[in-house]
């Protein structure tokens, strides 16, 4: 397939290695990957803060770029940005009275898939070897808005040497929550600690997730707590490194 990648602003600015890994995994699966020049951000930071007009200004730019892309599918290496596009864009453009954008958003939503979802759906499980005891973080939008619970797990199960450990509370929010992480930092950090206490009890050597923003928050807290034994990685990095 020909796939347009929306890198997401977080991956683009803070975790470029995740974007690179995503591209390599998709290419190895035989896909052609393009990053439309004009995409910026899905608008979610402002949308979640309640600033719909501002969110729409930014989202419209990305919408237009994705709508014009001549591709079979759009891949997003983040459950929450995928949710923004699939679940909230039409509501957003409706709220700001842009009916033409609502219609375009519907066609883009139909073609947009989260990274693990895409690989799982098209039988692109890359396989390979990855020696690690992994705990998986379920990100909230991916789990509860998109209903994607098992896709990433199936991909990890396909790796030799990789054990996915049970982690009670793995579907509880990590406390990132967009601007919440900065508007309510004490609670946000307490939530991370709650997750991390459970994580440490699993004996995992790696924490793997599909949303770099949650991972950034958890990694930042792990580091601040001096817990250096656990590596935090995006699924794309794991699959990329595992590839034969």
């Amino acid at each position, binding site marked *: 397939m020909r796939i347009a990648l929306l890198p997401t602003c977080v991956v683009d600015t803070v975790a*470029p290695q995740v974007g690179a890994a995503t591209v390599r995994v998709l290419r190895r699966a035989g896909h052609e990957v393009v*990053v439309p020049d004009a995409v910026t951000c899905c608008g979610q930071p402002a949308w979640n803060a309640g600033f719909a007009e501002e969110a729409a200004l*930014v989202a419209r730019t990305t919408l237009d770029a994705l709508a014009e892309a001549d591709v079979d599918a759009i891949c997003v290496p983040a459950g929450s940005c995928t949710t923004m596009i699939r679940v909230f864009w039409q509501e957003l453009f409706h709220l700001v009275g842009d009916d033409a954008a609502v219609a375009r958003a519907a066609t883009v939503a139909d073609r947009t898939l989260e990274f693990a979802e895409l690989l799982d759906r098209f039988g692109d499980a890359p396989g390979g070897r990855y020696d690690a005891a992994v705990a998986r973080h379920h990100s909230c939008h991916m789990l509860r808005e998109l209903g994607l619970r098992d896709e990433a797990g199936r991909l990890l199960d396909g790796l030799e040497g990789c054990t996915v450990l049970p982690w009670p509370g793995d579907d509880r*929010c990590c406390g990132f929550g967009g601007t919440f992480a900065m508007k*309510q930092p*004490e609670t946000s950090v307490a939530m991370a600690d709650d997750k991390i206490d459970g994580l440490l009890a699993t004996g995992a050597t790696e924490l793997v997730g599909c949303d770099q923003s949650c991972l950034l928050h958890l990694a930042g807290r792990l580091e601040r707590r001096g817990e250096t034994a656990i590596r935090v990685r995006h699924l794309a990095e794991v699959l990329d490194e595992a590839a034969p």
Partner: protein
Amino acid sequence: MSGATPVGFRARAERATADAHLRGVLHNVTDRLIDSRRVAQGHLDNSEELRRAARSMRDDIIRRLPEVLDRLATNVEANGGTVFFAGDAEEANAYIADVARRIGARSAVKGKSMATEETGLNEHLAAAGVEVVETDLGEWILQVGGDTPSHIVAPAIHLSRGDVRDLLQRVADGDLTDVPEELCAFARAVLREKFLRADLGITGCNVAVAETGSIVLVENEGNGRMSTSLPRVHVAVMGMERVVETWEQLDLIMALLPRAATGQDISVYVNQITGPRRPGEVDGPDEFHLVILDNGRSDLLEGPFREMLNCIRCGACLNTCPVYRQVGGHSYGWVYSGPMGAVLTPLLGDVEGSGELAGASTLCGACHEVCPVQIPLQDLLLALRRRAAPEADRAERAAWRAWAEAWRRPSTYRATTWAAGAVGRVVPEGIFPDAWTDGRSVPRRPAGGSFRRRLRNGSV
């Protein structure tokens, strides 16, 4: 807890999250409630279907609320009861104080009622010379300790049994242990005397049934039954939305409410009360009054927050909320807490700083997942944020505007992200100084710049 209560959610949450004892208690109890709910829900083979049916049933009732309440009032009066529609807290309190004065009441026993917490009835009656005794065990413990409920179903959820022992010791002659059975026996002995002496019984109302003019009290301790059968006058207070039309509809609510609330298939008591004592009956009050409280609710009937009136007050959203789990109910600053409280407080409460509550959530959706009537709480919180955005402080509004102006254009997006590496790029810089770095390390600046730059350089 000691010291003056800080103002605003963040300040209160900061204090709560620093309290390891409180968080430990909250984690234990909410974990247990979540597990019991899951098990009890599993006893239904069609729970998702029932939740959908309950949502549409509640939608329909709330859409026709004035008509349903008329029918309720007509039937309560036909049974010999009295109905009072209270526009606000003051009217409700004044009406109940009038009843107390007219019957010469010296003391009142109360079953659990969040509506009267909302109106501040206890203080009002105390000022009118009526001794008010809470009889729900949790509420009584709080009353003894001068504390307030932190959960709509389990009001003393923030106290360990050691805490409870310490509080009750204040009113006990002998030494108390922290054995729950012994603490309960002590409470029973004290409260039994209060029940027998009380002139007035005041309760809430979990659900009223319009077709027969009845009220239903769901409880586990029997204090609701005592409060409604021993005193000579019973006043029930209900939020105006707490009504169904038929007993068949009540059946659906009862399939969901105890399971969601406490993980019970059915509560120990389900009291169904239809009017005062009738001729030939041996117990029950001489008078029955139903106070139907508006207090801002009718403003929600039209508009984006109508679905909040579907709430049946089970508390499941509190138990499952990862924020509530860390901060407890008092952080929310009013009688309702957790996700439902974060929505209701800015809409109904007159509470300083309650606008902040819409932000007291990560919008994770766990609340919606467990809500027995499927209220999309995270969507309502988001709608509240949009409503508050125009009044956000000038710096925040300016920052989002500048962010939008920059990132609506690919060229300025690239210009601001090319070097990469700062969290501040993703969320406009300058709004939340140090908020990230206080508890978390900042990601290291990636060598080679942004992903897009690497792509352009051919290094991907």
